[in-house]
């Protein structure tokens, strides 16, 4: 299992869309890394999210790869991850931040 944190604005994503996103993320992790996901879904309370000083409509998806990956693969996966999210939520690419980190080195 690899950790995945989704930060979304409260009320922006319905529970049906959340379920669909969780399944898509699971599929993405299996397809990309051959592992499962441990999703931490966090809602930013209403009136608590700001982007560029204005009320935020942004979602952030942070995922840790099981092993260090090359930049070409990372860029491809990041694009896929954010486009999947966009397709499911109807958000624009300007409202989605994706992060795929390498595991911490000991």
């Amino acid at each position: 299992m690899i950790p995945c944190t989704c930060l979304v604005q409260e009320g922006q994503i319905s529970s049906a869309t959340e379920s669909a996103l969780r399944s898509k993320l699971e599929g993405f992790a299996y397809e990309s890394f051959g592992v499962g996901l441990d999703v931490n879904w966090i809602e930013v309370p209403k009136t608590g999210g700001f982007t560029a000083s204005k009320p935020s409509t942004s979602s952030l998806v942070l995922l840790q790869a099981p092993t260090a990956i090359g930049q070409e693969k990372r860029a491809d996966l990041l694009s896929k991850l954010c486009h999947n999210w966009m397709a499911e939520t109807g958000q624009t690419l300007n409202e989605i931040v994706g992060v795929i980190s390498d595991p911490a080195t000991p």
Partner: protein
Amino acid sequence: MPLYSCNAAPGAISEDAKPKIAADITRIHCDVTGAPPAFVHAFFFEDAPHQPLDGKKAFMFGSIRAGRTDAQKAQIIEQITASIHTHAGIPMADIMMLTADTPAKWVFEGGAVMPEPGEEAEWLAQHHSEPAA
């Protein structure tokens, strides 16, 4: 990115204070680093388990792009902490703030992998993204 995530004790940061602190965070980050405001996210939580308070009234955690100097990070921490103190009335001793570096190449925002610090103007022109402020 950057993402400034603030967890606070219930009621410690009022609804009125949040937009003021968020505006300060955006201004401070952009002044210190030269980054465009469109990249700056400030999220406020209360009693959030993912960001334990460890006995403090407020804990601000800033995930920023790698490449900033220690002096820049110190300025960011000093000024944002002061903003929380000013707008929320929390004593400085009850505010904790940390930053962590995230390599720009790990982050996808605005439809592309993020630029390295200092390469934002070219990136914005290339990706037709407009700073929000």
